[in-house]
């Protein structure tokens, strides 16, 4: 079985970045794990678009931040926070699909 992202990450979370975007943070507590994931090239805009059923333009940022051993992915919300049809006002439970990403 291949290793899943959740097994490597220390923190894997989602949260609103303002009411129109959701930001996904993946943070590691070992440089080795971070470098391994970074080097594997598994996390790409295409992959995120696929697992979140979004178009590439809806992936606003995908950035590696070496100092924090972290990856940040910011995606467009289809419906803004708290508006009719929204399902997660704080955007705090949108990270689950990312957990199962196979490395």
């Amino acid at each position: 079985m291949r290793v899943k992202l959740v097994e490597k990450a220390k923190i894997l979370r989602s949260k609103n970045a303002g009411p129109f975007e959701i930001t996904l943070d993946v943070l590691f507590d070992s440089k080795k794990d971070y470098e391994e994931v970074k080097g594997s090239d598994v996390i790409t805009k295409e992959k995120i678009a696929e697992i979140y059923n979004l178009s590439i333009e809806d992936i606003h940022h995908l950035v590696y931040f070496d100092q924090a051993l972290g990856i940040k992915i910011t995606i467009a919300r289809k419906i803004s926070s708290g508006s009719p049809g929204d399902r997660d006002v704080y955007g705090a439970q949108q990270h689950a699909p990312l957990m199962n990403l196979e490395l």
Partner: protein
Amino acid sequence: MERGNMQKGIRIISPCGILGYGFPKEPFIKAFEQRIHGIVVDAGSTDAGPHKLGANVSIVSRFALKKDLFIILEKGLAQRIPVIVGSSGGAGAKTHVELTLEVVKEILAEQNKHAKIGIIWADFKQQTIINALEEGRITPLSPNIPDLTKEKILDTKTIVAQMGHEPILKALKQGCDIILCGRSYDPSPFAALGIYHGMDAGLAYHLGKILECGALCAEPGTTKDSILGTLYEDSFTVQALNPIRKCTPTSVAAHTFYEKEHPFMLHGPGFTLNLENCEFNEIADGIIEVRNSQYIADKEVRIKLEGARKVAYRTFVIAGIRDPLLIERLEEVEHEVREQVKSYFAEISEEDYQVNFYHYGKDAVLGEQEPSPFTGHEIGVMFEVLAKEQELANAICANVRSTFLHYGYEGRKSSAGNLAFPFAPSDVEFGPVYEFSIYHLMKITRDPFLLEVVEV
């Protein structure tokens, strides 16, 4: 301003992540064994959605607001150091600031104290925004935000903008003991205090970004405990005040990340913070030092506008479904229910209402983005009706509920009822629903935030 601050450091306490969330008193009080230069607390957030701004209500109760402020003001006034509240009342509009001011006055009377209070308003008139729109000074904050229109502005009763440190600095220079800010960029009130003492704006804003959530940057993290930040000439440090938590380089670096769209480029009012070259080091047990936070002034100053407008009224029902035959064809049944309701309310335009079903236990959180197949044996169904008027929402929701409850789907064996309601009555009248109708940047040429000083 004092000489020698550069060496000794400027110490700022953030008692909690949102004023009114509460914090343990002891670590907060103990912090004053050393010299503290100010207590700064953020009261605001857009996290809870557009309702707070639209309906002019607070995030926390008046009780909780007073309880926290009582402790903070008592200490702040006794030490003769400024107390600054960012985004007063949650959304930081006039009603929110006025409520905070009223509570402050009440506390001062009870403590038999006098104070010079600076109030900084962050409200904007519709016409000001319309003018800016017509002059081409308004842009959406991200590509998925619709363009602003005059009609939307006129629909939006309350409009605020996030202030930078400038108006707060003005209040500090005028010697205010208490500063109640309207809507602020969360780090601004912290940055203002550092800048007032001659510290670097990049470090001051970065520290503010970390302190504004209380002890969330420590481990275990919480918004309900105090945190101490100290600004030096070329660095700052962060440390937890409660011995049960501790800051680590990772926890502080990770918090720099928190709820921002980009990990190291942070946009604030009139500037960009570049944190790409920051270093996070533990210089003593639990004391994390940060260096190299860089403040880059923008060529054109833009402030972030926020506005919420009422878009509908809601009535909703929560019910459980345990029958496997119904669970198997739930979407199909709901489609049929929707059609029956539509035909019953034939005289009502379909544009005047919508019916939404959410299936807790199946895909309510992620909706069409849910990748996992359903494997459970029961589903919590929440259905809502959004309509132009509350009475219409109530009427349609009652009809959806009774139609759904008794709908005779194909293959049904439980002919007595389809839904298990946990409560009587089943229908909950929610009230108005809002949306963020304005979340745009506005170019400005002068500080538009008004400072008012009152002595109490």
